[in-house]
C-alpha cells in the first residue's frame, strides 16, 4: 500500500503557550506551556493515538493543529502545504474534529438536521432537497434514522449525540479528523460501539485520525501508532504493538502497568508501578527532564539536561536519558 505511507499531516516543533495572570496593563508575565516543541506525523489512512494524563496538552495539540488555537511557534503541514498561517476556511472541509462532551458540543436550539446541515450551509455544498438527502444519508451512516433529523439534541442519549457530532464532522467529507476523547464521556458499552463505528468509517471513507484519549486499551485497539505526552511534551512515539510490548520511557511503563487485566491470577502476578506525587505546574515545569520529579530512575543528569527526542529503534522515538545512551 503505497498510498498509506504518504504523510497527510506533519507537525514540526509545535508550541502553544497560554498567557496567565495579566496585570493592569494587560501584559502577561508567565505562560502555561501547554504544548512544548511537539513533532510527529501521521500517514494517510492511519490513526495516531495520543495519550497522557489530564492537563498534559493532548487536547491543545489537537485544537492547535486545527488552528482553533493559534500556535505560538512551529509548523503544521497538511497535505504538503504549510497551513500555520493559511486561510483556514477551505481547509475546514478537509480537517474536522469530534468533541469529548456530546452534551456540550451540540447547540441546544438547533434540530439535529440543522446541526448536520450547518457545515453544508457554511461551505455552500449541497442545496435544497439534495442537502436533505445528504443529511438523511449521514444520519443512517452513523446508525441513526431519518426521523431523528427534526429532533433536538436534548432528546438523545449521550451515545446518540456523539453519533450526531460524528455525522456533523463527516458532512464536509473530511480527510483528517481529530477525535478529541470522543469516548471518554460515554458508557463502556457505548464506547465500543462508537469506536467500532469510527473504525468502520475509517475503512470505508479512508479517513485519518488523530485519536486523543486516556483509555490505553481503547487506544491500543484503534491506533496504528501511539504517542505519549507528559506536561506538554511528547515523550515517546512508536507503533502501537511496539509501545505496548516494549515501552522505553519510565512514564510509559508506569502508564501501561495501570491497565487492568481481566484475569485475577494474571493480575495478581503483575507489578504495578505507582507514580509518586502530582503533575508539576505547566507554568513552571521542572528543569531538564520534565518527568524527573516523579521518575524512579531520576539521576543528576536528568536535572541538568533535557533529554532529546531520539529514535531508539526503527520508528520508535523516546525522550529519556536512560535509553539514549
Amino acid at each position, binding site marked *: 500500500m503505497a498510498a498509506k505511507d504518504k504523510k497527510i499531516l506533519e507537525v514540526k516543533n509545535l508550541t502553544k503557550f497560554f498567557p496567565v495572570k495579566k496585570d493592569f496593563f494587560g501584559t502577561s508575565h508567565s505562560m502555561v506551556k501547554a504544548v512544548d516543541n511537539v513533532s510527529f506525523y501521521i500517514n494517510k489512512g492511519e490513526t495516531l493515538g495520543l495519550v497522557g494524563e489530564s492537563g498534559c496538552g493532548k487536547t491543545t495539540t489537537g485544537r492547535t493543529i486545527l488552528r482553533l488555537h493559534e500556535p505560538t511557534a512551529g509548523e503544521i503541514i497538511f497535505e504538503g502545504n504549510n497551513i500555520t498561517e493559511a486561510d483556514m476556511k477551505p481547509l475546514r472541509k478537509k480537517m474536522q474534529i469530534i468533541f469529548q462532551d456530546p452534551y456540550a458540543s451540540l447547540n441546544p436550539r438547533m434540530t439535529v438536521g440543522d446541526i448536520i446541515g450547518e457545515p453544508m450551509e*457554511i461551505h455552500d455544498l449541497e442545496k435544497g432537497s439534495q442537502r436533505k438527502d445528504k443529511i438523511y444519508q449521514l444520519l443512517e451512516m452513523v446508525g441513526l*434514522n431519518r426521523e431523528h433529523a427534526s429532533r433536538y439534541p436534548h432528546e438523545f442519549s449521550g451515545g446518540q449525540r456523539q453519533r450526531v457530532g460524528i455525522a456533523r464532522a463527516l458532512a464536509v467529507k473530511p480527510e483528517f479528523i481529530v477525535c478529541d476523547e470522543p469516548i471518554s464521556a460515554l458508557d463502556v458499552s457505548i464506547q465500543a460501539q462508537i469506536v467500532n463505528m469510527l473504525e468502520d468509517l475509517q475503512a470505508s471513507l479512508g479517513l485519518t485520525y488523530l485519536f486523543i484519549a486516556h483509555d490505553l486499551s481503547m487506544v491500543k485497539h484503534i491506533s496504528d501508532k501511539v504517542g505519549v505526552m507528559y506536561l506538554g511534551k511528547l515523550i515517546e512515539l512508536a507503533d502501537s504493538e511496539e509501545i505496548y510490548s516494549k515501552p522505553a520511557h519510565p512514564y510509559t511503563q508506569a502508564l501501561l502497568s495501570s491497565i487492568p487485566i481481566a484475569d485475577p491470577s494474571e493480575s495478581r502476578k503483575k507489578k504495578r508501578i505507582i507514580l509518586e506525587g502530582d503533575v508539576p505546574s505547566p507554568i513552571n515545569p521542572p528543569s531538564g527532564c520534565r518527568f524527573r520529579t516523579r521518575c524512579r530512575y531520576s539521576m543528576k543528569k536528568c536535572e541538568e539536561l533535557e533529554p532529546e527526542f531520539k529514535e531508539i529503534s526503527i520508528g520508535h522515538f523516546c525522550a529519556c536519558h536512560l535509553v539514549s545512551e
Partner: protein
Amino acid sequence: MEISTELFKPLNKRTPAREEAVRPSLTYWKDAWKRLKKNKVAMICLMAITLIFLAAIIGPYLIPYSYSEQIRGEEDLAPCREHLFGTDGLGRDMLARVLFGMRISLSVGIVASIINLTIGVVYGGISGYFGGKMDNLMMRLVDIIDSIPTTLYVILLMVVFKNPEVNIFELPVLSLFKGLGASLISIYVALGTTYWITMARIVRGEVLSLKEREYVTAAKALGASNMRVLFKHLIPNCIGTIIVITMLQIPTAIFVESFLSFLGLGVDVPMASLGSLAADALGGIRSYFYLLAFPSLAICVIMLTFNLFGDGLRNALDPRMRK
C-alpha cells in the same frame, strides 16, 4: 402472584429492534408555553395585556368623542352614562383621554422594546463575543451613558427640540412624526439613547459565558464566520433572557414617560398621557377625585400586568432563574 405461561405472547419478529422515538418532539417554545400555562397569574396578566392593547388601539374609535373635543355645557361632569369616566374642566371626555393616554404609554413601551431588541442585543452581543479591549471600550461607553440621568437627557433634548430656530421636523426621518410634537419625540430619543444599556450588559454577560461552550468551538471548526457564530449560535441561546428583559423593561419605560409627563415634561397640549392627566387632575383632587383616579389606576394596571407577566415569562423560559 403467579404468572401463568398463557399470559405470554410471542413477540412479533418484525418489531424493529432499534428503539424508535415515538414521543412527539417537544421544542423549547412548546415546553415554555406549557410551563407558562400552568402559571395562573401570568395567564391572567397576558389576557389583561391583550385587553389593554385592544382598548388603546380600537377603544378611541368606539366612543363618540375625541380626546381633544370640548363639549360646551358638559364641563366637570362626574362619571355618568354619556361620559363613563366623567369630563374635565374644559368639557373633554375623560374616557377618550385615558384611552389616548394609554396609547402614548404603550407606544413608549414599544419604542423601548424595539431599542432593547436591536441596539441592546447587538451591542451586548458584539461586546461579549469579541471581548478583550473592544469589550472594555464598549462597556466603558455604556457606563458613561448610564451615569447621566434620563430626566436630564429629556430636559436638554426638549430645550433643543423646542427651540424655534432648530426645526427638527425638517429632518427627513423626523418629518414623519410631526404630529407627535417635540416633547414626545424628545422622550423617544432619550429612551433611545439610554434604554438599551441594561439589555446590552445582560446579553454581554450571557454571550461571554456561552462563547466558551463546545458547540461554538465546533461551529468555528466548521469554518463559521464570527457573525454566523454570534447570530446563529449565541444570540438564539440567550433568547429567553432577551425576551424576559424586554418584558420587564417595557413597564419601566412606561413609568419613566408617565413620571416625566407628570412633571410637565411630557406630551404637548392638547395631547394626553397618563402622567399629564394625573398632573392636571392634581389641583382638583378634593372636588374631582375621579379625574386623578382613572389615569392613576390605568398606570397601576399597566405596570402590574407587565411586571407580573414578565416574571411569569422568566419562570417559563428559564426555569433556572426561578427564585
